[in-house]
């Protein structure tokens, strides 16, 4: 899951080396925290959060497939 978010984010940004994803298990939910270079925030969020929404859809589909619960936070 962590790798999935990293792969997608790296392919979208200008500074792939600054992409970080941290994982934290909170009860039965895996919380992923994605951080990118401040200049790349728009590249992972998009107009009206359209890109963030698409990343989450793909991530949730993958999580459901593996019977897991996951959440994605995007921070600067």
């Amino acid at each position, binding site marked *: 899951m962590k790798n999935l978010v990293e*792969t*997608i984010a790296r392919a979208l940004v200008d500074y792939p080396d600054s992409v970080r994803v941290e994982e934290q298990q909170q009860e039965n939910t895996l919380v992923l925290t994605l951080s990118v270079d401040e200049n790349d925030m728009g590249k992972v969020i998009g107009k009206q959060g359209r890109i963030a929404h698409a990343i989450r*859809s793909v991530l949730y589909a*993958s999580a459901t*497939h593996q019977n897991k619960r996951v959440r994605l936070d995007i921070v600067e």
Partner: protein
Amino acid sequence: MKTVKVSGKTIEEAVREAIVKLNVDSEKEITYDVMEEPSKGFLGLIGTKPAVIEASIKIDPIEESVKFLRQVIQEMQVDAEVEVIKRGKETELSLSGENLGVLIGKRGKTLDSLQYLTNLVANRHSNQYSRIVLDAENYRERRRIALEELAERLANKAMRTREKVVLEPMNARERKIIHSALQANENIETHSDGSEPYRHIVITPLKTNYCS
């Protein structure tokens, strides 16, 4: 993106130098901008200036997007093949394999998200827009048929009840399928209402038919 700045007596010489530096096989694989035109100067003695170019490896948008898609699918732990079908300006990436339902999602939500992300990756570096359509197990065609049947059914309902029928929100492509399917029907009128992502179709029966 890796860029090198090279110089040579002529532009051709600089290009050859760039091919070596970028470690590629031919000129086709690179793009370059001429920074400074060469000048032979006076009798090749005074004021000679070398050609300076800035070159980088050409990125093929389709190749990039296929690579991206394969990697994402693999990390979603789905076993699927990606086939590239070129149709003029549009390129279809067709998925085949097992468990494709995971990649399609409810009403194609996952497939649409993957398609959106793949298009972003494809058009990141190129000036020319390439449109990519993602399909799995012929989902797009099956969905079109299902939508056309739905349109027909709801148009009949609108005519029978003489009341407006409000459809659930759909994206632009799906709304277009419904509008087109009912365009020829003179007993009803279709229009879209609301704003994205909640934009939806409303089918209205036409009054002229009330007394007939």
